[in-house]
């Protein structure tokens, strides 16, 4: 396996700047997921690593070898495409052993590798079939099998599950996680689905507008998003954002807007960041909005709201609340049993509260 380094990668399509100085380092045996909204440049970055896209500026290293000018076939990478890209005129077996045949590998070795991959992916029964005779999930498994047999230095996955239905996607997600445990390979995985990113990644690279926003473990980016974009992108349902200003009362920072006033303890916002009149955005995840529950020291004071809509998800329930003119989403245990329009009290859990500067959109809380 291998390390991968992106150094100051720039990509332009005409005048359109797609990637702007991307610096990422992937360690040996690491599973890194690049996540971001459509058009953020994540697939372009992956394709540049594969050698399918020219690099406008910057350097890419695989195992400390500069690969900018290296042909895709010489990079020792394997790629699983979003649309499977199976060769339609070849059987499953021929698809899987295509790369090995090109290398003129020993026939017994080829058969052994295909058999091993087919065993892992439960494809033994389908080796003689043509791609058109397979279901979507099976095709995706063949595409993964085609990558496995090559034993490459780096595996590249380009949104491999986005064409599957929800149930199959879940199954394949587990399969890929198991596969990683088994292969212990260096994997770079691109997706726009933050659930895939959170569940599969050792580290997540979050991108937007061609810029890396944050790199960190799933729990890091969830607990400590560095800016408003990451805070809004990671986590489902999305984080609540409350805009307002800070004021200092007896040395304590107080957040206020038209509808809410609450102190922000020093363990959330350091004194150095608490300037009087500073415009800020508070971020609170729906799980950290406590409804009709006693607060305690680690929570804000009670805030009155009105229940607008309830969404029962089975074991959890989403409550859309109105606090003055501000909408707040809370996720609570199922069967809240209150009718829309009724008054409810809520408070915010300080321990997981995020404060961002409104102008720079950067995190200023601890």
């Amino acid at each position: 396996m291998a390390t991968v380094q992106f150094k100051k990668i720039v990509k332009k399509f005409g005048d359109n700047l797609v990637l702007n100085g991307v610096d990422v380092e992937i360690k040996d045996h690491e599973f890194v997921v690049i996540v971001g909204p459509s058009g953020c440049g994540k697939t372009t970055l992956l394709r540049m690593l594969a050698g399918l896209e020219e690099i406008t500026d910057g350097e890419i290293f695989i195992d400390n070898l500069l690969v900018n000018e290296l042909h895709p076939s010489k990079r020792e990478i394997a790629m699983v495409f979003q649309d499977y890209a199976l060769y339609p005129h070849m059987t499953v077996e021929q698809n899987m052993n295509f790369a090995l045949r090109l290398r003129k590998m020993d026939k017994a070795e080829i058969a052994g590798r295909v058999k091993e991959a087919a065993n892992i992916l439960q494809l033994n029964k389908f080796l003689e079939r043509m791609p058109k005779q397979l279901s979507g999930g099976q095709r995706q498994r063949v595409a993964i099998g085609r990558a496995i047999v090559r034993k490459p230095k780096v595996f590249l996955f380009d949104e491999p599950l986005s064409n599957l239905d929800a149930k199959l996607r879940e199954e394949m997600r587990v399969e890929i996680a198991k596969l990683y445990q088994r292969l212990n390979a260096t994997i770079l995985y691109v997706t726009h689905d933050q659930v895939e990113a959170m569940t599969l990644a050792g580290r997540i690279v979050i991108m937007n507008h061609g810029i890396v926003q944050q790199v960190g473990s799933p729990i890091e980016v969830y607990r400590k998003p560095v800016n408003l974009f990451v805070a809004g992108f990671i986590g489902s349902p999305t984080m609540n954002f409350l805009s307002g200003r800070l004021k200092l009362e007896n040395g304590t920072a107080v957040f206020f807007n038209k509808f809410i006033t609450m102190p922000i303890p020093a363990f959330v916002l350091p004194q150095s960041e608490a300037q009087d009149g500073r415009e800020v955005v508070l971020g609170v995840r729906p799980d950290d909005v406590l409804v009709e529950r006693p607060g305690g020291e680690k929570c804000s004071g009670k805030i009155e709201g009105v229940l607008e809509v309830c969404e029962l998800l089975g074991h959890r329930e989403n409550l859309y609340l109105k606090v003055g003119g501000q909408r707040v989403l809370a996720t609570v245990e199922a069967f809240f049993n209150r009718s829309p329009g009724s008054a409810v009290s809520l408070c915010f859990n300080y321990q997981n509260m995020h404060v961002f500067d409104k102008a720079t959109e950067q995190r200023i809380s601890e």
Partner: protein
Amino acid sequence: MKKQLSAAAKRKRLQHFFIHAGIILFAGACVYPLLRILTVSLRPGDKLFSTDLSLIPAGATFVSYARLLGDTMFLRWLWNSLIITLATSFIGVSLASTAAYAFSRFRFPGKKAGMILLLSSQMIPAGMLILPLFLMIMKLKLMNTYLGMIIAYSVSSLPFSIWILKGYYDTIPRSLEEAALVDGTSQVGAFWRIILPLSTPALSIAFLFNFTTAWNEYLVARVVLFSSKQYTWTLGLFELQGQYITQWGMFAAGSMLVTIPVLCVFLYSSKWLISGLTLGSVKG
């Protein structure tokens, strides 16, 4: 309900009847001249101008065929045509398939203009090209040669073939070639191993077009070839047309014989003219 259904069924049956009647009428119109030629080719020499309409004439004989093959250089002309046509078809399709690939997959200056230029070259009537072709072939010192004919034919059907193939390549997902590149092929390898096998329907069409155009061509052959030994069958058959007398029996026999290679090529290529070759390759 039953009544309604039966009325609908009746209407459908009537519709089918008219459709089939139309098809049979057109098929008859197409086949009739061929059958008449067959009849003429089988007639004995004294009944060539008979008004008898029977398919197999009284006293049917293969004398015209025997005389054509024995007394004239017809086999030689057929051979010349076959060599020129096959070479033209293979060269034409090879050039078109690679040129179309470049037009389909690469970005280069003048790509759009090139495609339009190719298309507009098809709008020039064939007769207008005779003089420039004659001058070019003469300057290349290829008059009265196979090569001269092959060059003239291959380039003239190139634009159409490029358009056909480019259109087809555009429908093949690029990710298939990219997968092949990552798997270890070169760009040429990806074209050879992935694109070409998937393009057989379009390649067959281009081949058929090249074949039939070259096989039936007369004008260019008339200008380039001047010794009867080098003649293609189109020129050769006209040899049978004299100032005072035309050998209609042999003419008809020749006409029947030249349809055989075309028929064979059509029947053979029909198995490649299948759609849905790329099914299952990518998410549909």
